């Protein structure tokens, strides 16, 4: 009898309850794949929603692709709404969209650097708390307009823009930009005094406008490079300090950041030939783990050790070098000097603890209050860096 009652209950549950609350039909849903937030008039913000157009991704029987409303990008539809609040803007999308707006496929959030930093923090926290939004989505800063960045996204060799965002920002193949996940960013900005960095989202032609960080004479940077497109790119990074945007770092510094943090495993660096400065020598560097930072509070010293595998990318040994080992040592010395220069610039000039070294000294304290009262800023600004990059 009990089994019969239970079976009947299960049967009626499955039949009658499937259409109750929280019903979601896939063809009645509009999926946001990217979101741009710009400043607007007075207290308003300009929200750019980029929706996936699945039908536009599918080719027609003639082999031609259907056109979407994105600028040259048929796989998305982009629309901008100015509103005082994110939720008002999201609700307003339904003024002309028949489908329910869903953020479960959101892959990228771009903020304009022109909006107040508190807006970036507030929106990031708010979006992370949204049930539909995944914590692993990417976040970036556009030096001018977030909307422009999204409209100019035109995935090369990729028909699905959503996948393009995911591959671009989360795969470790973009050596010149730092990748940042939403949950890591929110964790950092919500905690008082924590510094963090975000990738810069801009168009290819604006690459030259970046501030150039200090240089080591024999080091060759990508600063003079130019991408012959005005499509959107991710390159360089901006630093958030104490919840405020403080400075920008160029593509070269971002590469060094990725090298030390092991966000990129495989990179190629070029240096000038010691005996023939007009020649460049290129080396492949492979890392297997993040650099090890050890801090000596008494000696006011921060030691950085990174193990890597370095190999010369040339068919023959250049003149003047007794062996390949000597050539690699020469490159490592220049890399050492450039990394020292980068760390000193971050510490002295920008005072940005982008590697979260503050956390490395936590284990030296027993109580939260003692650690919280430690004057890390003064220590970091005056600390000496010892860099040791080893060829394994």
């Amino acid at each position, binding site marked *: 009898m009990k089994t019969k*009652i239970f079976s009947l209950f299960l049967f009626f549950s499955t039949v009658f309850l499937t259409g109750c609350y*929280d019903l979601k039909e896939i063809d009645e849903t509009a999926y946001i794949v990217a979101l741009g937030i710009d400043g607007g008039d007075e207290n308003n913000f300009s929200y750019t929603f980029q929706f996936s157009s699945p039908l536009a991704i599918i080719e027609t029987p003639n082999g031609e692709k259907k056109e979407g409303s994105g600028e040259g990008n048929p796989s998305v539809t982009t629309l901008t709404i100015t509103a005082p609040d994110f939720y008002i803007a999201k609700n307003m999308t339904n003024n002309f969209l028949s489908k329910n707006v869903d953020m479960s496929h959101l892959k990228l959030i771009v903020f304009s650097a022109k909006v107040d930093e508190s807006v970036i923090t507030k929106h990031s926290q708010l979006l992370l708390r949204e049930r539909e939004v995944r914590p692993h989505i990417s976040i970036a800063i556009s030096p001018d307009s977030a909307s422009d960045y999204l409209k100019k996204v035109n995935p090369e060799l990729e028909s699905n823009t959503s996948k393009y965002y995911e591959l671009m920002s989360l795969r470790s193949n973009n050596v010149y930009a730092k990748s940042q996940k939403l949950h890591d960013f929110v*964790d950092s900005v919500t905690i008082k005094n924590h510094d963090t960095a975000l990738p810069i989202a801009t168009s290819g032609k604006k690459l030259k406008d970046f501030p150039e960080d200090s240089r080591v004479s024999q080091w060759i940077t990508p600063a003079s490079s130019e991408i012959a497109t005005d499509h959107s790119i991710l390159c360089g990074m901006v630093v958030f300090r104490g919840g405020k945007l403080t400075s920008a770092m160029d593509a070269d510094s971002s590469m060094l950041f990725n090298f030390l943090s092991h966000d990129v495993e495989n990179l190629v660096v070029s240096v000038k030939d010691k005996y023939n400065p007009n020649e460049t020598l290129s080396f492949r560097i492979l890392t297997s783990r993040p650099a090890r930072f050890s801090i000596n509070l008494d000696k006011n010293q921060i030691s950085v050790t990174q193990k890597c595998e370095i190999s010369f990318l040339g068919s023959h040994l250049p003149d003047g070098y007794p062996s390949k080992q000597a050539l690699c040592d020469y490159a490592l010395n220049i890399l050492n000097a450039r990394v020292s220069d980068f760390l000193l610039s971050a510490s002295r000039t920008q005072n940005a603890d982008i590697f979260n070294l503050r956390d490395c000294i936590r284990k030296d304290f027993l109580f*939260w209050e003692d650690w919280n009262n430690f004057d890390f800023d003064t220590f970091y600004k005056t600390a000496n860096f010892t860099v040791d990059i080893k060829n394994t």
Partner: protein
Amino acid sequence: MSTDNISTSQLLSLGVSLSAYRIFTNLPLSFTHFFGTGAPLFSVIAGLIFFAVLFFLTKKLCHSNSENIFSTAEKTFGKFGKYTLFILFWVYIFLSSAFLLSEFTEFAKLVAFPLSPRWFVAIFFVIAAALAALSSFDALGKISTLFVPLFTGIIIFFLATVLFQSKPENLFPVLGTAKAETLPGIFSCLLIFSDMLLIFLVMPSKNIKKPVQKTILRAFISGFFVVFLLVLTYTAKIPYPLSKEESFPLYLLVKEVYYGRFFQRIDAIILLISALWGMMALSLNIGLLAGLSKALFGIKSHFISIFPISTSMFFAALFLSSSLAHLSQFLLGLAAAALFAGILVLAIFTKRRRQTPNEN
């Protein structure tokens, strides 16, 4: 419902279920609230305190010639002792069930049913638990033996994955915000394990083939390990003080599980696990309450006692919704402390009979 035929493995599974199911609730956050980054260390201390007390209680109350805990209370303190313990258990189980139902409803809403009304989600738990409570403890034990090891394994796997992706620096300073004023907070953290006291109602008083004490302690250690892993992973993943602002730590952590583009959003599994685990725990509680009500009020039919209990539990859970979460936690804490004190007094004053060679 008789517990006399319950096997050692069933008792072990039920024990693990009772000591670990509160990982789905907000209770593990109490370690973070009191001790900040010191939460994992103090969870170990809380576990050791509870283990020591459980060891004492089981040594005194669980042995091969032990009787039902109420018979022991009657022998030690007379009818007054028996009925006091009845009432303490009844009040505790009722409040614990209402709290459980309220938290699991909130959890299910958060994970999968944001638009559904609370009553709609809660009613599923109550109906399923009430129907399951009609069956015997033996059936519940069998279901626990089947699901608890599987679910525990999945949760450990998820937590270990997130732990490997987290920052160990977040675990320091190791003593966190502990101060002389916050140390008594460890007793309120013990609430996370308090349902383990129900094991004294579940354990068999006859047909004991293996030492019950060992089984209960083993169950507690397994359940404690899951709770500790959750607290450790949460502290390592969500930096303090952000961690004390959040709610439902298990859900937050499972959302972080990411094995790459093709294997993500596996937090959907947690809905199934939490729903089944919640229903199992709730049906056990309803079954125990029905049994106690039968004895207290002289109700003869198990079915008749289950219906009003389930209904009142349903309304209590709706009343003790998120807006009254602190009140419900406070009341539950009071009831747990009273029950705990009651069992402790019983264990202290009870005299263990010398085991004769014919027994066991």
